[in-house]
């Protein structure tokens, strides 16, 4: 297993390098010049000012040299400096990472637990009203745009009944500590995590249901039934466990993309995460920051893919690690 992991890490580094080089050029292909964006925001734009900004950003150097400087930095774990935000990129990302992880992992847990649970029930009672009800419920949240669900949530739970806060990570100025702070953050987390979680839940519900119905028809389930095992044992130990493999695959892909994938939710709920940082960096053509976020997200995808492969082995012992 160790040699498997080592080989995957080496491959991961090569993939990461390719991502960095590709993104480096892709970002620069987009129209828009960070120096002009900043000059524009300053309400003035003379030649001297734009030239100064280009020098400051290092944009006056030839592209290959800019790339070399950047890759050299990455090799020493230096993600560069955001001149727009006047801070090291690694610091800016580290500031936002905890909030993003809290939101996306909570949403991920909600979607996975509810999705598998609902999927199992739907498969167990396939063709009944319960199955139809669950399918409709899941598809409603999948079909509605996230920003719409978010705004309706705010309208209902913040404006109408005033149960939950409409924005932010915590109550600003309350200076809460200990359990009170935990409760405060949790209250702020409910709506964004549910909005994001319910969207992804539909996929897991549908996938679990379809996969379980497929497994249910296989011979070993009939054998188990013939042996006289109870229905719940058959569903739990034989059907669900075998049906989970595609769900795990999907969850692995989702988990990797969750870091950068919550832009809309973070924007509507003013959640101070990486998605918003990335979006702002994109609008401002803050190249170093944008690349830094991309690198972080890529590393996350690689890590989660590795974890997914390891979980495969746990779910299905027949799978072996091939070096």
């Amino acid at each position, binding site marked *: 297993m160790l040699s498997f992991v080592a080989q995957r890490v080496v491959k991961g580094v090569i993939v990461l390098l390719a991502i960095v080089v590709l993104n480096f050029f892709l970002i620069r292909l*987009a129209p828009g010049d960070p120096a002009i964006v900043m000059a524009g*925001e300053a*309400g*003035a734009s003379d*030649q001297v000012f734009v030239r100064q900004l280009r020098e400051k950003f290092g944009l006056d150097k030839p592209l290959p040299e800019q790339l070399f400087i950047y890759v050299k930095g990455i090799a020493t774990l230096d993600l560069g400096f955001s*001149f*727009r935000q*006047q801070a090291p990129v690694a610091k800016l990302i580290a500031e936002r990472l905890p909030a993003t992880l809290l939101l996306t992992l909570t949403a991920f847990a909600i979607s996975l637990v509810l999705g598998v649970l609902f999927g199992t029930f739907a498969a167990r009672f396939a063709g009944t009203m319960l199955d139809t009800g669950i399918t409709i419920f899941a598809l409603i949240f999948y079909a509605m745009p996230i920003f719409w669900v978010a705004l309706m949530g705010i309208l209902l739970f913040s404006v109408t009944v005033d149960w939950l806060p409409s924005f932010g990570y915590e109550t*600003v100025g309350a200076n809460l500590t200990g359990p009170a702070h935990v409760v405060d953050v949790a209250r702020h987390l409910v709506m964004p995590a549910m909005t994001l979680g319910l969207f992804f839940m539909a996929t897991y519900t549908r996938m679990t249901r379809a996969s379980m119905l497929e497994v249910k028809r296989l011979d070993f389930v009939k054998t188990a039934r013939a042996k006289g095992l109870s229905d719940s044992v058959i569903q739990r130990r034989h059907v669900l466990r075998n049906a989970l493999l595609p769900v795990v695959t999907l969850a692995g892909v989702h988990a990797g993309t969750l870091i950068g994938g919550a832009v809309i939710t973070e924007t509507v709920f003013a959640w101070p995460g990486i998605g918003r940082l990335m979006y*702002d960096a994109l609008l401002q053509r803050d190249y170093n920051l944008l690349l830094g976020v991309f690198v972080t997200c890529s590393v996350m995808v690689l890590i989660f893919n590795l974890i997914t492969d390891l979980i495969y082995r746990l779910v299905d012992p027949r799978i072996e690690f091939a070096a």
Partner: protein
Amino acid sequence: MSKRVLLGLLLACGLTASALTPALAQEPKAGGVINAVIQPEPPGLMLAMIQNGPTQMVSGNIFEGLLRYNPKLEPLPELAESWSVSEDAKTYTFKLRKGVTWHDGKPFTSADVLFSIEMLKQTHARARTNLAQVDKVEAPDDTTVVFTLKQPFGPFLGIFEVGSMPMVPKHLYEGTDWKTNPYNNAPVGTGPFMFKEWQKGSFIRLVKNPNYYEKGKPYIDEIYWQIIPDAAARSVAYETGKVDVLPGGSVENFDVPRLSKLKDTCVTGAGWEFFSPLAWLWLNNRQGPLADKRVRQAVMYAIDRDFAKDVIWNGLGKVATGPSSSAIKYYTDDVPKYPYDPAKAKALLKEAGYKGEKIRILPLAYGETWQRWGEAVKQNLMDVGMNIETISTDVAGGNQKIGDWDYDIAFTYLYQYGDPALGVGRNYISSNIAKGQVFNNVEGYSNPEIDKLFADGAVATPDSKRKEIYEKAQKILVEDVPVAWMLELQFPTIMSCKVKNLITTGIGVNDGFKDAWLDK
């Protein structure tokens, strides 16, 4: 009169008065916290190095300039307590306040002013242009600064507000690498509020400066600038009482009437006199049909600007008559007029020989209101037979296209800074045609007479002479239509009525909250 027009008038006149007048009569109360919205999140707070709108709004509390300006744009004391001008209008002497200290306790002196000017010449494009007429700056003693100009410069007393010329602590910046100086992230000024905390993506917290030189001020203990990126969520934050102040431009314009009607809500359009935002369409004078003056005039006749004001901007603002906003010096409405007249527009297009060539229009990616305005203008122009194609980009992409002159018609709005020499001439003089940059003469208009008028106007004396020059310039420009002027924009500030005296100068919210207090 439509409801929207009525609302606009109410906002412009009645509510402004009701929001401000009673506060003047009451005795200010000390204490309390103001929660205000800041949008978008500023990239930094070091005003000498970053001059975008949100930075000015927050940092106007931390830093100060030598002067501030009342709504009539007359100078008021700030760090300078008095000033005098020599008879030849070339020497300006400022006496600084005594006993002013930086937030770290070090004294503020004339050496800081000299240092700030040298730094701003390198870091602040507008300050560098404003200071171009300065021959030398001297500090004969700790509290005196003398500017000697190369020649008289009419708007000189108008360049000293905090956003245009913020004072920087020499002892913290001299001899350092300015762009990576740690105080950029924990700014130290002389202002009424001190920087305390910035949780990126959430809020910026400022606290009262207990050693502020105006005794008793500021009245407020703390300001939280809340960062809420979604316009609808900002409206909800105000509705649910989580924020007290929505500075101009914080919410979409179509939300303003609804929020204005909320209980205990005060609205004012005041505080934008110095900036006087004016919206227009860049018209590319270099190529295609728009190179013909008659086509440009046809654009002016074809667009229903009253509709834009009454419907898209909910009655806020004023139809522009030309290159100068009515709030700034030397404005005249004695210029050719362009009422909404589609028939005349069609006739002009026919006369110019327009044969349906494609014209690309670039809306401004500043949100829903601007998007709607782009659609309305497109419809107006198509109604008179123009072949319009909308090009959609984000702000950065749009700026690049405009800077590269790769457009036919493009939306914009710019500040005017109180004087035609500071905020008007830059868009029409031929020496400001420079590819790769935005907000200069990107339309490519070139008229030696206009060049001379703006050059003479900046240095002419007395004031009556300047007035004569600028009035002539306005008439020529309006006849030539280098750009299509649309509206004098109004960005109303919406706030809880418990917040008093928030806006007391022509610089508005950007001038800091030192006079504000809470009627608890």
